[in-house]
């Protein structure tokens, strides 16, 4: 046997230690956050846009929207934070579709990592993304007079509720992101869903003055329960009126319940759509 032949059969390799789900996900989160740092404009949707919403509603419509027993800016802030959180599902969907479209997911799939780390990493970075938005909202709120009035525990509980709800909707995002082929399609679809979802609710105006059928829809909208829960936990508004629908009478419990219902529905759909897409 000649030396050349020996060389042809052996490639010296470095030690490969395939990462655990946690490590692989953390690496993918690092990569996704690097994207945000390189393109801070990715944060526009949850920062500048949301601040604009706050200012628009607080100062332009604020005078016209009478909220009994509360000042409108305090009433508004929880609503805008919920809206920001709901939009995290659009963020995750667009990010996932973009990675699928550009072959990045294919690259990850060719590596010895748990495939679910692509989804776990994506959802964590999207939660971080929208949490930055909530933080910016909070600071803006503090500047214009919003306060957490019911103590630290309730205050933190409200933030946890927001995160849980955001996490639940992320599965909707993964589902939509796995089904659609282009980022533009995803964006169009998600915004068409998100706008009515966040506007036909108590986010920007109380539901009492809506026409009865619209009021019923708005009060059963999961977004309203979460908004009401945050308002009550932060002490930013009165409890729901006695004639409001049942979910608004028990907003914290109902928000938690909706979150788990969404996870139960969308997580299996999301995982199977992603798997199916991953088979081709």
């Amino acid at each position, binding site marked *: 046997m000649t030396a050349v032949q020996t060389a042809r059969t052996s490639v010296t390799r470095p030690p*490969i*230690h395939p*990462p655990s789900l946690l490590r692989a996900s953390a690496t993918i989160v*690092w990569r996704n956050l690097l994207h945000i740092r390189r393109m801070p404009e990715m944060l526009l949707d949850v920062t500048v846009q949301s601040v604009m919403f706050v200012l628009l509603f607080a100062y332009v419509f604020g005078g016209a929207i009478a909220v009994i027993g509360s000042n409108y800016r305090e009433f508004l802030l929880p609503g805008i934070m919920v809206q920001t959180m709901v939009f995290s599902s659009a963020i995750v969907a667009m990010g996932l579709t973009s990675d699928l479209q550009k072959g*990045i997911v294919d690259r990850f799939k*060719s*590596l010895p990592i748990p495939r679910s780390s692509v989804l776990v990493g994506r959802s964590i970075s999207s939660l971080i993304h929208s949490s930055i938005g909530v933080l910016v909202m909070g600071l803006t709120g503090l500047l214009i007079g919003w306060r957490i009035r019911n103590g630290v525990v309730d205050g933190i509980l409200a933030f946890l509720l927001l995160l849980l709800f955001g996490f639940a909707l992320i599965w909707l995002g993964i589902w939509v992101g796995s089904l659609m082929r282009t980022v533009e399609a995803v964006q169009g679809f998600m915004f068409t869903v998100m706008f009515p979802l966040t506007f036909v609710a108590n986010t920007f105006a109380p539901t009492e003055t809506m026409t009865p059928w619209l009021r019923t829809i708005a009060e059963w909208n999961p977004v309203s329960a979460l908004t009401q829960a945050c308002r009550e936990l932060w002490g930013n508004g009165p409890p729901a009126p006695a004639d409001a629908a049942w979910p608004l009478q028990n907003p914290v419990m109902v928000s938690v319940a909706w979150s788990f219902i969404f996870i139960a529905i969308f997580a299996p759909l999301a995982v199977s759509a992603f798997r199916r897409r991953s088979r081709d």
Partner: protein
Amino acid sequence: MTAAPAVEAVELVKHFGDTRAVDDVSFVVPAGSVLGLLGPNGAGKTTLVRMLTTLSVPTSGTGRVAGFDIIEQPNEVRRSMGLTGQAATVDEILTGRENLKLIGALYGLPRKYVAEATERLFARFDLTHAADRMAKTYSGGMRRRLDLAVSLLAAPPILFLDEPTTGLDPMSRSGLWDVLRELVTEGTTLVLTTQYLEEADNLADEIVVVDKGKVIAAGTPTQLKDRAGKASVVVTLTNAADLDAAADLMRAHSPEVHVERGSRRVTAQAGGLGDMTRIAAVFETSGIELDDLGLARPSLDDVFLHLTGHRAETEPDAGASSSDATTEGVPS
């Protein structure tokens, strides 16, 4: 030395709805050799590579990579091979260096190794000057090279390349060929797809020709070219009046001579360069004026025409052309 094959396809089938993208394909690639999967656009090359690299699940059949079953042991397969897909799969927002860092972390490679390997690979692929630039500023050729560097980071003994040179200019193409040859001398087994017979001819030990999802021929480059017909010497005359004289001259050197009057061309079957120089020498002394004299080898077109009776479409497909478009207006 073991005779275990590096890659095996065993009756692989993949259907997309009614499309039979891959229809019962089997082949064996011995360790250390180069297999060329040759076929026109839509033949099923990408689908084959995606199945063998565990990106796509076969409808039926299976395959083995480094002895591991692609369906039963996908993770072992992923550890044993590198893949450079048809469209570059680099992260455009990350710098070249960060792309390698990302992949290194996902393989769980030691940081120190990744740092050293990055320097080595960037030097080899002429990317050192661009290592800290975002990959979106790279030209199409640079992206391809970065993609290849990423694929080679864990020094895989088996490398799959899907149309590695489609859309590259001739210079970059021959540069890439050199790199691939080096890899082979280092012991890497290559499976590469291509639409160009010339490329398969240059690189592959063994060629498998696929069309419409099926293997229509397999063999060494020489065997295939012989089946597709011999090379020919093509002479273009300055004056049509000399056509018959030229044909007579060439008949003395070749069994089969063909005259095309309209284009003032005489074609003679030839064995290779030797025949061409001999015929050139004859015309040197004949006084017949020539516009052009050259050797025409059978093209992929000829192979296809011969094997299938229909012409191959050789324009690059969507994935490749979109990566070309990115070369526009990019500093290199």
